[in-house]
C-alpha cells in the first residue's frame, strides 16, 4: 500500500513550517536517508530525509507552500510493484511510510490510560507533606543505649566509619589527605592502618573528578564515603552531587540508585573569611533525591554517620570544624546505635518557647535556654539532626505546646532552613501561634576576616535569647 510522507516537526516547539523546496520529483527513486525536501522552521531551514525506500509517487504539497501544519501528508511514497494508480489507496490521514505500520498515535495512549492499575504507594515524607500529610518520624529508643564511652566528635565520626567498614567490605573512604595524613582535621585517624590503602584512599586535589568517580563506583556496587576537606571545596563537585547522585534513581525509574555519603566540615570555622566560611544546609536541602544531615554532639555524629553509610540514598553530611574537638561522655558504644534519618531530638523540653537548631547552633540554643530559664522562660530545644527529610512532626508537636518558635541557623537568611520552617509554621500551625516566628541567622554578608566583624556576622546565644524574649513579648 502506498504510504504518506508527513510534514515533520524538527524542533521541540515547531507546530508548522514552510515547504521551501522539493529535492526529488515525482517518479524519482528514494533511498532511506536521502534528502527529499527542505523545510523552513521558526528557527532555520532544515533538510527532510526519507525513512523508507520507494518511488516518490505524488507530491501533495507543492514547494513554496507556507504554514504547513506538522503531520500533514506532503507526498506519497510507492512501494515495490506499486504505481501511481494505487495512490487513491493511501489512507487520508495515514502517517508516514513506516508510521503506517506503527498505528495511530494517540488512541492507544488514551485507551491504555484507563486500564492502568493504580500507581505505586508514595512514601517520600517531603512529597506527602506537600500532599497535606505530616508523617511521624521513624521510631527510635535512644534511652535504651546505656553502654556509653567518652569521645570527641572527631573520634565518634572515625568510630562510626570504622565500624561500618568492618561490617561491610564495599564501604570505603576517599578524599584529600584522608589516608597518610590521617585527615586534614584528623577525622580518619588510624583508619589507613586498619583498612589499608585500597579502602582509605588519598586523592589528588580534584573534587569534581573524585566525586564523579565515587558516584560511578556507587552505581557499580560500592558504598563510598567521600570527604571534602571542607564543604566550600565541595562546590566544585556539586554537579556530581546533584546531577549524577541525587537524580539517578528517578531518571532510571528506580532501577539504579547511588548509595554514597559526602561529608566534611560545613559553615564557619574561625577567622578564615569568606571563601572558607559558608553553610550549605539550605543549598543541598533544596534538592529532591538527597538526604541532608547535620550532627551536633559526638553521639549525633556517631549514630547519624552510621545511618548515613547504611542509607541506600546519597547523603550530604554536614559537620562542623569547631565541634570536632568537643568531648562527650555519653556516646553509645553499641554497633546498633544507628539514629534514623528524619528524626529530630528534643534536647531540652520546655513549655514556653520552641527553639529549633542544628549543628553548632544546638549548643548555642541550649546555652540560651539556660539563660532564659534564669529569666523565667522555659525553652524547648529541638536538635534537627536531619535537615532533609525534615522532622516536621516533632517541630509542630512542640509549637502546639509552646505556641512560640525561634529558628536558629548559622547560614544566610534568604531561603534558609529558617525560611522553610517559617513556611511550615504558616501552613500548619498558624492557629496555634501566639507570636510571629523569629529567625536567628548569620548576617547576610560574605564572612569578614576582622575578628570584630566576624563576631558580628555569626549568630550567638545572646541573639537567641533576645529572639526568644521577643516572641514571648518580654523584650
Amino acid at each position, binding site marked *: 500500500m502506498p504510504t504518506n510522507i*508527513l510534514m515533520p516537526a524538527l524542533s521541540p516547539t515547531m507546530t508548522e513550517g514552510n515547504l521551501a523546496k522539493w529535492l526529488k520529483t515525482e517518479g524519482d527513486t528514494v533511498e532511506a536517508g536521502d534528502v527529499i525536501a527542505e523545510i523552513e522552521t521558526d528557527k532555520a531551514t532544515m533538510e527532510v530525509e526519507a525513512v523508507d525506500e520507494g518511488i516518490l509517487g505524488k507530491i501533495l504539497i507543492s514547494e513554496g507552500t507556507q504554514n504547513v501544519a506538522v503531520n500533514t501528508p506532503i507526498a506519497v511514497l510507492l512501494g515495490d510493484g506499486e504505481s501511481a494508480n494505487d495512490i487513491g489507496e493511501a489512507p487520508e490521514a495515514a502517517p508516514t511510510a513506516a508510521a503506517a505500520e506503527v498505528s495511530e498515535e494517540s488512541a492507544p495512549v488514551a485507551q491504555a490510560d484507563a486500564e492502568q492499575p493504580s500507581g505505586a504507594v508514595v512514601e517520600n515524607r517531603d512529597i506527602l507533606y506537600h500532599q497535606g500529610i505530616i508523617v511521624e518520624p521513624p521510631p527510635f529508643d535512644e534511652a535504651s543505649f546505656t553502654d556509653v564511652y567518652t569521645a570527641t566528635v572527631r573520634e565518634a565520626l572515625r568510630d562510626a566509619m570504622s565500624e561500618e567498614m568492618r561490617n561491610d567490605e564495599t564501604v570505603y573512604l576517599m578524599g584529600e589527605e584522608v589516608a597518610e595524613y590521617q585527615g586534614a582535621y584528623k577525622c580518619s585517624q588510624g583508619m589507613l592502618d586498619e583498612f589499608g590503602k585500597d579502602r582509605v584512599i588519598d586523592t589528588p586535589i580534584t573534587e569534581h573528578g573524585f566525586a564523579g568517580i565515587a558516584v560511578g563506583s556507587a552505581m557499580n556496587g560500592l558504598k563510598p564515603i567521600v570527604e571534602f576537606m571542607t564543604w566550600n571545596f565541595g562546590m566544585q563537585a556539586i554537579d556530581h552531587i546533584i546531577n549524577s547522585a541525587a537524580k539517578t534513581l528517578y531518571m532510571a525509574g528506580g532501577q539504579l*540508585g547511588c548509595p554514597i555519603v559526602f561529608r566534611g566540615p560545613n559553615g564557619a570555622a574561625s577567622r578564615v573569611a569568606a571563601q572558607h566560611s559558608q553553610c550549605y544546609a539550605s543549598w543541598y536541602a533544596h534538592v529532591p533525591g538527597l538526604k541532608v544531615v547535620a550532627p551536633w554532639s559526638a553521639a549525633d555524629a556517631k549514630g547519624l554517620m552510621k545511618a548515613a553509610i547504611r542509607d541506600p*540514598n546519597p547523603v550530604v553530611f554536614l559537620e562542623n570544624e569547631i565541634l570536632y574537638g568537643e568531648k562527650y561522655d555519653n556516646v553509645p558504644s553499641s554497633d546498633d546505635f544507628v539514629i534514623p534519618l528524619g528524626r529530630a531530638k528534643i534536647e531540652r523540653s520546655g513549655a514556653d518557647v520552641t527553639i529549633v537548631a542544628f549543628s553548632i547552633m544546638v549548643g548555642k540554643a541550649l546555652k540560651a535556654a539556660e539563660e532564659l530559664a534564669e529569666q523565667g522562660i522555659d525553652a524547648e530545644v529541638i536538635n534537627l539532626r536531619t535537615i532533609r527529610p525534615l522532622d516536621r512532626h516533632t517541630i509542630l508537636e512542640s509549637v502546639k505546646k509552646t505556641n512560640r518558635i525561634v529558628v536558629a541557623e548559622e547560614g544566610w537568611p534568604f531561603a534558609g532552613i529558617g525560611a522553610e520552617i517559617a513556611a511550615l509554621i504558616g501552613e500548619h500551625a498558624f492557629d496555634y501561634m501566639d507570636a510571629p516566628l523569629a529567625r536567628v541567622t548569620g548576617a547576610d554578608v560574605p564572612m569578614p576576616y576582622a575578628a570584630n566583624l566576624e563576631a558580628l556576622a555569626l549568630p550567638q546565644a545572646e541573639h537567641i535569647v533576645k529572639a526568644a524574649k521577643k516572641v514571648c513579648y518580654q523584650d
Partner: protein
Amino acid sequence: MAAAKKKDSAKASNKTAPKDGAGRNAPSVDVLKKYYRDMLLIRRFEEKAGQLYGMGLIGGFCHLYIGQEAVVTGISAAQDNDKDTVVTSYRDHAHMLACDMDPKGIMAELTGREGGYSRGKGGSMHMFSKEKRFFGGHGIVGAGTAIGAGLGFAHKYTKDGGVAVAYMGDGASNQGQVAECYNMAALWDLPILFVIENNQYGMGTSVKRSSAGTLYRRGEGYGIPGEQVDGMDVFAVEAAASQALEYIRSGNGPYILEVMTYRYRGHSMSDPAKYRTKEEVASFKEERDPITSVKDMLQTQGVDEAELKEIDKEIKAIVNEAATFAQESPEPHVDELWTDILVEESA
C-alpha cells in the same frame, strides 16, 4: 536484539580466521553479517526515532548516532560483555543497542512511556540498565567520563575482572573533569577504556576551533597510552579496541582510543548544521559510510542481494516492533511523578 545476540559466536569465528594483507584477521562472512546487522539496527533505529520525533511523538532533545555506527559496534564486539560496563553521554541510543538492551524499551523511553527503561522518567538522554551493565545516558557533557572512571574503580576494588568503557565526545574531552580522571585513572591503574568519539564537532564548534593539540595524546603526560583509529571502519575499531582492552585487562591501567568518525545528522533534531558544507557531509556519506563498506565486502564474498534484503527486512521488523511498542505502551501512571526520588527503606 536478535542482531546483537550473535556477538560472541561471531567474535570467536573472527579469531580463527586467516590474516588479511594488513595482518588483520580477514573477516569471515559470519563476522561481516554480524557487523552489518548490528550497524544496520542502529541506523534504522535512529531513522525511526527521527521519524517519530518528526511526528511529535518524541519530545525535547534527540541526538542521533547516524554515521557513527562503526564506533560502538567495533568496541562492543571487542568487549567481554559478561563483565564490562559502559557509560556514555546523551547520544546514547546506539550504545544501549550495543549493550543488548531491548529496542522496545529504548524506543518507549524516547516516547516517554511506561514501557521505557526508565518508565518514561529519563527520556532519550537518561537511561540505564543495571542488568546489561549500561550506566547511562548522561546529559552533562563530561560527567560520564568521571562516572566511567568510577565504574572502573569498582571493577578494580571488587577484582571482578571487568573493564569500564567510557565514551565521550570531542567536545567533552575539553572538560576539566576529563583531565582529572586521566590523572586518577593512571595513578590508580583503573581498568578503563576512554573512548573519544571524535565526530569533529561539539554542537556547532569544530574541533579545530575548540581543541588544542591531539586529543588522544592528552593522556601522554599522565602516562596513558592512546591512539587514533578510523571510526568509519568497524574492523579497525574492533582491532584497536581488542588490543586496548587486553592491555587494560592485564592490569596496565587506562587506555585512550580516539575514534575518528562523523555524524551525518545535526547535533540534535533541531540543528540545521549550517556550520559545515554539504560537500563535507556528502564525502563521508558517499565514500566512507561504515555500513555500505561492510555491505560491499559481503557482496564481494558472494552474499547475494536477496540475502541482504532478508537481513534488512529482519532489522526493519525489529525496529517497527519497537516503534509500535513505543506508541502503544501507555504513558506512565500519574503517581509515577512521586516515586523513585529516594529508596524508601520500609519498601
